[in-house]
């Protein structure tokens, strides 16, 4: 049913730390690796070794240059995956009921057996979180690794999303935003977690932690000593060359 649940018991989602992410793309690879053999159709590639390779990914890492008014530019790596929105427009536009949001934990999923591949849900998502698989003709999106987080055949440490488990920096965190004392709720609260594009009215669940303010290099106490003016021959040369 593509009407949204009035309320979800849990709000599972991710916190992504833009302060620590180094842009190594490990989460991109881990996500593709896990979801290639789990939930639904594999994530196909077109001409992977050809001149113009292309393929389906559920998670992509951008890099931005941000220039504050009073300090030098900084590079910020920016992983982009589904934000499991509370008011998910991708769900309500779906004509077939293939797209749905689970009432129990808020995960937004696609039932691929019902998907006609009309692409409307990808149009409705502001964040580019959905990609149509060119081989299967069905819509693919982040499942929040629903086949890991509840999977009792995996060791407990592995019962979290592949991208979270693999991140060497610990820049991705998984948890329940409905619980104010969960790890993700506390992180979002303490670090001023950001909701992306609030003007789109999607009420995203995931939060992004803004980069901390960088220290500004203080002027060295020895700096005045650098202003030595040459004397003698060197001073004469300096004056002469300065005139040319």
């Amino acid at each position, binding site marked *: *049913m*593509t*009407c949204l649940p009035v309320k979800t018991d849990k709000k599972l989602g991710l916190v992504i730390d*833009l302060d620590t992410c180094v842009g190594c793309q490990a989460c991109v690879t881990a996500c593709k690796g896990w979801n290639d053999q789990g939930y639904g159709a594999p994530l196909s590639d077109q001409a992977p070794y050809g001149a*113009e390779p*292309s*393929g*389906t*990914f559920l998670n*992509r*890492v*951008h*890099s*931005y*240059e*941000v*220039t*504050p*008014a009073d300090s030098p530019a900084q590079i*910020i790596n*920016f992983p*982009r995956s589904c934000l499991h929105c509370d008011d998910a*427009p991708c769900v*309500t*536009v*779906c*004509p*077939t*009921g*293939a797209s749905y949001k689970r009432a129990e934990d808020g995960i937004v999923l696609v039932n691929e057996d*019902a*998907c*006609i*591949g*009309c*692409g*409307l849900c*990808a*149009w*409705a*998502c*502001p*964040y*580019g979180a959905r*990609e*149509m698989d*060119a081989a*299967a*003709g*069905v819509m693919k999106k982040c499942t929040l690794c629903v086949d890991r987080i509840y999977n009792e055949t995996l060791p407990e440490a592995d019962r979290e999303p592949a991208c979270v488990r693999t991140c060497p920096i610990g820049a991705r965190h998984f948890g329940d935003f409905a619980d104010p004392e969960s790890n993700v709720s506390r992180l979002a609260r303490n670090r001023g977690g*950001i*909701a*992306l*594009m609030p*003007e*789109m*009215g999607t009420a995203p669940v995931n939060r*992004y932690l*803004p*980069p901390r303010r960088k220290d500004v290099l203080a002027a060295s106490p020895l700096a005045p000593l650098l202003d030595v003016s040459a004397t003698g021959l060197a001073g004469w040369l300096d004056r002469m060359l300065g005139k040319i």
Partner: protein
Amino acid sequence: MHPAPSVILFTVLSGLGFGYLAFLGAGLVSASGWAAFALWFLGYALAVGGLLASAFHLGNPQRALRAFSQWRSSWLSREAWASVATLAVLAPVALSDWFGFAWPRAWGVAGAALCLATVFTTSMIYAQMKTVPRWNHWITPLMFQSFALAGGAILAGSRLWAAVLLAGLGGVLAAQWRIGDGRFAAVGATIGSATGLGTIGAVQVFEQPHTGPNYLMREMIHIVGRKHAQKLRVIAFGLLVMAPLAMVLALPPGPLTVALAAAPHLIGALAARWLFFAEAEHVVGLYYGQRGAT
């Protein structure tokens, strides 16, 4: 947005078809016998042909029947119901005209109202998209209705209706272009709000996340088409509105006039619909730093 030929054909042909069927249903075209059959056949062919074209846009068209299930939330699903209901309701009216049964016209008028309702559901598929600010405005449904009614009036061969509705279409289309040009800025989504980094400083793309194109870029970041947009607008306007207007006003009413007015109108409609997609910017382009290229 990617101007896919199947979707352009679908919206133009079915819109024209339903607009024309509305005139036939309301009894504004008088014909009987085989002449009536030919007129109704054209209407059904346009409407159904357009709907079939839309199937080429699907990744798994064999499951298309499932699209009827979510009418409670989805405009695409409502459109599926509205078009089938309209074609079903109008069928007895067509038979009555064909065989001269003279069944009450009220049924046909109800069918005409359903035609307009169907066009409205189509338009809402686009107008509901907050992610595409140019479409997300009440002018979008008005524009689709104007297309359907003006095209329908041309095919119906009614000089007065065609002249009035073509003039109306011209005004609405010009307004849609004007309003649309300011919509992205009005909505206020920027690379700063998309990344949440705008509060720190000026944001620009440092490196793209992938070196080849992907589905998002092919489907939603179409910047090539915006290059000649202004010229195309003038051409589309001339063919869509001015040429047919001149034909219906200058030539005596008749099948030849209908054909001479409908031909440029249809080409103009295809061009205008191409622009409707090609000029529309999706906010996801912000993540790729790709918008506003002209």
